């Protein structure tokens, strides 16, 4: 009844994973949380190696060395702007691992597999393989190695439906006749294909949500393996991970005012291509010198960063300008929209990288409360998240999405390269407002030029 030492190590590991997430809730304890997670993982691995004495220690060691050799450079060299892509890539890795284990376990158990095990294994393999191709496509799209546009063709729904039917059919086949040699390969191919088509069919703007959902799938597959292998640490850790992806996806949907279902089943319908009322009017471009004069006289400035900040790697330059303004007595803060950039928390990470203290990073609601008394808003490569159509134009696809209300400040300076729309492909009436000035050019170059202006004078 007392069980083995190993089983207690598993309990310890599970508890450490719980603490890991608990501590992750605030900055102060977050690093401890990360270490707790690492310790939990180490203990789980060691316990497993003790409990299941492997016949192939050499292979295990080689595999781990290879994994470490690949993992360390990724971790050290990765630019912060590439975090979304790397998350997608690692989901691809993780889900492939899960899928391969599921497949291996299937062959291991043959020829006797009970119905329950086979059902869980089939579900696990479908999830695993579809997450693999899906994450790979997400990676390619985010890395802009393929177009972010949703792949739309006639009969798309029929094709997708057919593939799902094949995948489910072969799963049922496996459950009825686990030893039949054809069902598994069919299942694998169908799942791979489905993942591919699913994510190909989703527009770039939904990619972060898709990644969160795929994260959830990866966790659930691990939990499923836990059921098959009767391993509780897999169940606990996998489920915690599944919950995390799920919640993040929901939060993102809320921040974008989209229904969860519309993303979840996104593969079956194209992202509403931007329409909304046509916007026209005069735009007021600005030179760097004029912008300098406006900023020089401002006593409160709010920076609103968006995806363009990441593209042009302008975080350092933004911080420098902020510091210059602060030294001249202005109050400087950063308004962070929850879905600015390409993943949740993206802007926080980039600005933290540039040494902006995190108490200057203000969430949308709070910064909006201060907008009316703000002298200048500097929009750095943000577009959709400051689009007033979300509040003003009921026909806009963005309508209802919470935004940062820069248009309510006294003056808005928008830093971008052109009049091209943002991720959602929607026109932005902000650019035509009376209090808006457009400062065209690469965000980083523009910011550096502004800093230079201040240095000169």
């Amino acid at each position, binding site marked *: 009844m007392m069980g*083995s030492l*190993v089983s207690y190590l*598993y309990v310890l590991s599970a508890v450490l994973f719980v603490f*890991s*997430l608990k501590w*992750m*809730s*605030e*900055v102060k304890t*977050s*690093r401890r*949380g*990360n270490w707790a997670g*690492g310790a*939990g*993982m180490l203990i789980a*691995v060691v316990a*497993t*190696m003790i*409990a299941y004495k492997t016949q*192939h220690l050499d*292979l*295990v060691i080689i595999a*781990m060395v*290879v*994994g*470490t050799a*690949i*993992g360390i450079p990724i971790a*050290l060299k990765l630019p912060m702007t590439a975090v979304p892509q*790397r*998350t997608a890539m*690692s989901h691809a*890795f993780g889900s492939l*691992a*899960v899928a391969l*284990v599921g497949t*291996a376990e299937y*062959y291991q158990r043959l020829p006797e597999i009970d119905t329950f095990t086979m059902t869980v294994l089939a579900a696990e393999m479908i999830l695993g393989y579809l997450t693999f191709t899906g994450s790979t496509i997400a990676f390619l799209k985010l890395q802009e190695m393929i177009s972010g546009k949703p792949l739309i063709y006639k009969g798309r729904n029929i094709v997708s439906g057919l593939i799902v039917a094949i995948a489910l059919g072969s799963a049922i086949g496996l459950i009825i006749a686990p030893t039949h040699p054809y069902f598994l390969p069919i299942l694998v191919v169908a799942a791979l294909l489905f993942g591919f088509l699913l994510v190909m069919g989703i527009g770039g703007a939904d990619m972060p949500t898709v990644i969160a959902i795929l994260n959830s799938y990866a966790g659930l*597959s*691990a939990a499923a393996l836990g*059921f098959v*292998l009767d391993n*509780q640490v897999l*169940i606990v*850790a*996998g*489920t*915690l*991970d*599944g919950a995390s992806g799920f*919640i993040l996806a929901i939060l993102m949907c809320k921040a974008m005012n989209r229904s969860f279902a519309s993303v979840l089943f996104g593969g079956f319908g194209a992202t509403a291509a931007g329409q909304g009322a046509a916007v026209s009017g005069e735009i007021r471009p600005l030179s760097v010198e004029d912008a300098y004069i406006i900023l020089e006289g401002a006593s409160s400035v709010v920076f609103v960063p968006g995806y363009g900040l990441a593209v042009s790697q302008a975080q350092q330059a933004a911080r420098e300008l902020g*510091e210059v303004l602060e030294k001249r007595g202005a109050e400087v803060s950063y308004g962070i929209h929850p879905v600015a950039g390409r993943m*949740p*928390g993206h802007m*926080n*990470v980039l600005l933290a990288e540039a*040494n902006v203290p*995190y108490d200057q*990073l203000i969430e949308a609601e709070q910064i909006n409360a201060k907008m009316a008394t703000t002298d200048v808003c500097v929009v750095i490569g943000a577009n959709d998240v400051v689009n007033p159509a979300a509040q003003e134009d009921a026909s806009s696809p963005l309508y209802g999405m919470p935004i940062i209300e820069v248009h309510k400040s006294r003056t808005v300076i928008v830093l971008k390269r052109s009049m091209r729309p943002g991720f959602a492909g929607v026109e932005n009436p902000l650019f035509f407002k009376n209090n808006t000035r457009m400062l065209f050019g690469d965000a980083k170059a523009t910011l550096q030029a502004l800093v230079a202006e201040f240095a000169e004078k």
Partner: protein
Amino acid sequence: MHESTTPLSINLLIFLLSAFLGLGLIRRVSKLLHTPLMSLTNAISSVSVVAALIVMAEPKNKMIMIFATIAVALAATNVISGFMITERILRMFKKDHGGKTP
């Protein structure tokens, strides 16, 4: 734990408790930390390395062994890079100008 089989109902209970717990915990994570949260959970999801190690313990044939070995390598990559990137990101969060991480 591998000596006896736990009844499914118990594993189901553990799953459900973990799910409730996870939903509650993640909801409370500050928005500031959503990116490192993603990389952390990404690393944690590679707990599947445990599954790979179990399968690898006594593989029935070569193919199973190869699959499992690849899985270990892939999962190990994620574990290492996941925790390390999270650490790198978290180190960046500072409260005061030029101050050190707490």
